[in-house]
């Protein structure tokens, strides 16, 4: 399979890349790791006139922790992030980064590319909701910072404007006595998940939830969140009953498509068991236990 012809540019700075994108117009596309874009081009689902290769732009691949404020350069690969200190400190990040596709794809795919693609099955957009992350964008009119909620607008649709690029992802290391878990179900490592769940919990005291973020992925056109489901848990006991109620509330807000990965009702059942599993891992981690959990596949 061959992509349709396109012209190729490899600018040497971010400024030059933005200038090129702005001059060439919206038929030009940025290319980072290419792990989402190249399959799309090969299937001819998109035929850009020009590709602007930004993968080698300097100083956008960092992973930093400045007193608990994490900043990840948009060109950091899933593999870079999975193997970073941040992944050790914030297990939900390791679950996500280390669970995406397979080693080969993680070696090339970037976090910036994943959030910019906004594929409803991509894990980063959902995961970043559990950490209230911010997306730093840079374009012809300078820099702006959006919350992940304001950034992901719809399936394959972000708030990025013409010639604007994601340059950094920011979030805070969760407070003490917090724990999170991100689990997806997929039929094989390289497949997109049929459904995924992310849960980040802060404990007030044993079994009482101080604060919580819940998200479902691949369960609608964009990551599914539910204030109602979070309110069931916030300030309350993390009993099995309450977890069941929260699961029910957020799954009611989801709209998983019936497709080759499963029927909508299969996915709802799957979301429920993933939710309970992720909640239990998150609670265990919040209590200080080191639990390994990531995407599951048969």
């Amino acid at each position, binding site marked *: 399979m061959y992509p349709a012809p396109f012209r190729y540019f490899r600018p040497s700075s971010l400024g030059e890349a933005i200038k090129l994108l702005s001059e060439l117009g919206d038929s030009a596309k940025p290319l980072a790791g290419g792990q989402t874009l190249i399959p799309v081009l090969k299937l001819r689902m998109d035929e850009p006139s020009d590709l602007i290769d930004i993968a080698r732009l300097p100083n956008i691949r960092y992973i930093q922790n400045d007193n608990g404020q994490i900043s990840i350069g948009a060109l950091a690969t899933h593999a870079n992030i999975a193997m970073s200190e941040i992944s050790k400190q914030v297990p939900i990040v390791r679950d996500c980064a280390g669970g995406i596709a397979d080693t080969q794809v993680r070696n*090339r795919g970037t976090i910036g590319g994943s959030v910019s693609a906004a594929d409803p099955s991509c894990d980063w957009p959902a995961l970043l909701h559990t950490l209230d992350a911010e997306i730093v964008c840079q374009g012809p009119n300078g820099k702006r910072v959006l919350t992940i909620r304001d950034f992901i607008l719809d399936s394959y649709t972000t708030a990025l404007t013409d010639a604007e690029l994601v340059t950094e992802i920011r979030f805070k290391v969760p407070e003490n006595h917090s724990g999170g878990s991100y689990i997806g179900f997929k039929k094989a490592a390289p497949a997109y998940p049929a459904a995924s769940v992310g849960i980040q919990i802060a404990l007030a005291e044993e079994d009482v939830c101080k604060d919580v973020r819940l998200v479902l992925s691949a369960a609608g056109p964009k990551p599914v969140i539910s204030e109602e489901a979070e309110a069931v848990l916030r300030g309350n006991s993390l009993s099995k009953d309450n977890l069941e109620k929260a699961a029910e509330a957020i799954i009611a807000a989801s709209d998983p498509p019936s497709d080759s990965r499963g029927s909508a009702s299969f996915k709802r059942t799957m979301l429920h068991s993933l939710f309970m599993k992720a909640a239990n891992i998150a609670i265990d981690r919040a209590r200080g236990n080191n639990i390994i959990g990531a995407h599951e596949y048969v």
Partner: protein
Amino acid sequence: MSESTQLVPITVTVNGKAYQREVEPRLLLVEFIRATLGLTGTHIGCDTSYCGACTIIVDGDTVKSCTLLAVQADGSEILTVEGLEQDGELHPLQQAFSQNHGLQCGFCTPGMLMSSLALLAENPDPDIKDIRKRLAGNICRCTGYQNIIKSVQAAAKSLRED
């Protein structure tokens, strides 16, 4: 569309040998290796970034060469399955696959070998779980994975004893 005739000069080192070529931007790295350089050991299986038959090593990392453009590899050091054999002697991984029935039709084998090579470079003594996890992006449809895992373990042992 005159733009389609754009040719981009690239330089890559493949299995220790430097190549300079002019390529169309849409040329996939796997096609460049197979058709332009004539190194057909790297296979095209699914052509959708799924099966891992096209796995090669670029600057130390395994990648699926069907999901990379040749222009993206400009300036890089590439290792393909042809680079494993040294002075007519099969690499210990190749010997182990041969001795442990790690292949039947052999179509997935080049990718399996490259992923296994990268694993053993990082972890000389992987357990079964490590091997399964690392080979999760390489699909075999005939041998079954048991003998592939056995082969990787045998190669690890022989490399450790070297």
